[in-house]
């Protein structure tokens, strides 16, 4: 259980761990999952601040809040409330989309932007699916596309307590509220990525079947000076599947900021 903080009228649950440069970490659509080892690894060199998105974990989803724009302003307010300076803004998958929406608005509190397999932009033509339709494939197919080794990502839901299952169900609905249509992207975001005025680094799992490396190349082309690095033996969630390699890549990036 993280601590609770109310920002702009929204009660958020936040996981906080470690010392050093602040790292605001925005989680994937699958949830934060703070019990996986990734958080401990990142906390060795950073003060990790990882909110559960509204509707996920113990964070509230008020009726008035329902777009990724709202999340961007909410987290800018959170960064201000925590008086973050010179922080790293990191986001994975859906959280990467939110991080990019923040960065095109205001980077004053951030020294660098790390995006891990972000969703959020439209690259191809009208009949091209840049982002796999995760809601139109069976769960087993999703796992095969999202993980290099799906066994590492398996969760036995039948063994979880009901409170945790309820939080998972709420989070799944919240992801739909934010990202159902247009599916997991903002058609205009790509046109504003040029506004990102801090160093940006993209991380991509070599076996990511949710968003392919070509999609990462499109991100790199739109953000001035962005760099792109791949992580072997990882799918869509390198921070979960290869936490050690993810931490090394993150540290190398933050040390040059």
């Amino acid at each position: 259980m993280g601590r609770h903080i109310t920002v702009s009228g929204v009660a958020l649950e936040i996981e906080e761990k470690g010392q050093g440069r602040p790292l605001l970490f925005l989680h994937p659509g699958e949830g934060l999952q703070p019990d996986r080892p990734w958080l401990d690894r990142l906390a060795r060199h950073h003060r990790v601040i990882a909110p559960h998105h509204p509707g996920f974990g113990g964070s509230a989803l008020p009726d008035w809040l329902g777009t990724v724009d709202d999340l961007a302003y909410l987290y800018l307010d959170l960064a201000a409330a925590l008086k973050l300076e010179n922080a790293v803004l990191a986001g994975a998958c859906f959280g990467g989309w939110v991080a990019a929406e923040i960065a095109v608005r205001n980077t004053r509190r951030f020294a660098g932007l790390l995006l891990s397999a972000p969703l959020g932009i439209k690259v191809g033509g009208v009949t091209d699916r840049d982002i796999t339709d995760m809601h139109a494939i069976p769960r087993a197919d999703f796992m095969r596309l999202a993980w290099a080794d799906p066994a590492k990502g398996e969760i036995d839901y039948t063994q979880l307590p009901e409170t945790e299952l309820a939080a998972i169900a709420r989070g799944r609905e919240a992801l739909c509220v934010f990202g159902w249509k247009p599916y997991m992207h903002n058609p205009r975001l790509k046109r504003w990525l040029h506004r990102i005025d801090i160093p940006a680094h993209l991380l991509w799992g070599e076996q990511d079947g949710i968003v392919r490396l070509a999609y990462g190349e499109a991100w790199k082309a739109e953000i001035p000076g962005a760099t792109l690095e791949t992580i072997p033996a990882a799918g869509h969630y390198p921070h979960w599947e290869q936490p050690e390699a993810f931490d090394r890549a993150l540290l190398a990036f933050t040390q040059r900021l």
Partner: protein
Amino acid sequence: MRTWYFSEMAYHPAWEKGLARGSLRVNFPNEIVDPREAGALLNRYLDEFALCDEAGLDIMVNEHHSTATCMTVSVPMALAVIARETRTARLLTLGNPIANRPDPVRVAEEMAWLDCLSGGRLEMGLVKGAPYEIAPANSNPGRLMRRYWEAHDLILKALSTHDGPFSWEGEFFQYRNVNIWPRPIQQPTPPVWMTGMSVETGKLAAEKGHVVGTLLSGGLAKPMYDAYRKRARELGWEAGPDRMAYAAIVGVGTTRQEGLRRADSIADYVRTAPVVAEPFTNPPGYNSIAANVAMLKAGPRAHRLVTDRDGQPIDHRTATVQQFMDTDTVFAGTPDDVFAQLQAFNTRMGGVGHLLFFGQGGYLSHQDARANITLFGKEVAPRLRELGAPAEAAA
């Protein structure tokens, strides 16, 4: 009890292929449809609806999308044809899937137009729609019921406002000049119906005073009807049977065997309709958190089953006619059999005023469908009309 005949106008020639692929909906490519055969079937089904006027039955139409189980893609389109071919039958849409409709004012216009066309015979169902309707409509399953209620309120206001235009700036819908032409004959609006399967829906429908309908499971219907009656009483009124509706397959014949055979044929619809690819069965937000917790706990291999009157689980995909009769999904036999079964059902449910008579599933021949409608209209429906609230429910 009034009787409303309905048929989903299935494209059953594709069912075998759909069952083999494990999905008859959403991701079942339409290359399998022969459009000329579809047209012939639609004409045949519409002829079956047209018989109802003579048989003294009312009519219900619903719609589904992207599926071999139902070719009715638009309730108002089907009812427009039927309205012209009938003179006395009341015409029920059950319904307009308004949480999936981008334009509620268009729905209000269509309903008003139908009410005018039919001389005020329209009954207007406003429904949430099935989970697998989310994908074809690409409507957001998150906050679905909030969108439903906003559309509901807007449609009723559009139908009942005569000094417009009015403006509407809601969470989901925005209009600056709502002023529908024509307006409906029935005022303030045609009677409103809802569908549901939960106690919560029963309560909400009672708060609006709408008719509430459910389908194919007496075990789920009873708690919902009870919740409706209880909530109505709390609000100071008695909800009679005319507020409760129930959809069931009915096969009637001159012999018991003939009635059972017809019901068995129609029941292939129920054995087929739930077969849909996994991701479309439960879009996040469609079902309650509690229902999702139960599903996660049950694990991926658990199938959702209904239970019979003894609490035994029944799998719709493989059930026999007898098993379907035990869950109140099917009523079948001679006219006397069917009347006795429905009379007992009415008593168990505490009074149901509307039977939604599922009388065509797909495989039933035109000849059998005609005979089923005609015999039911002649021998069963008149007796059902005399059936009111059971004595113990009124007490």
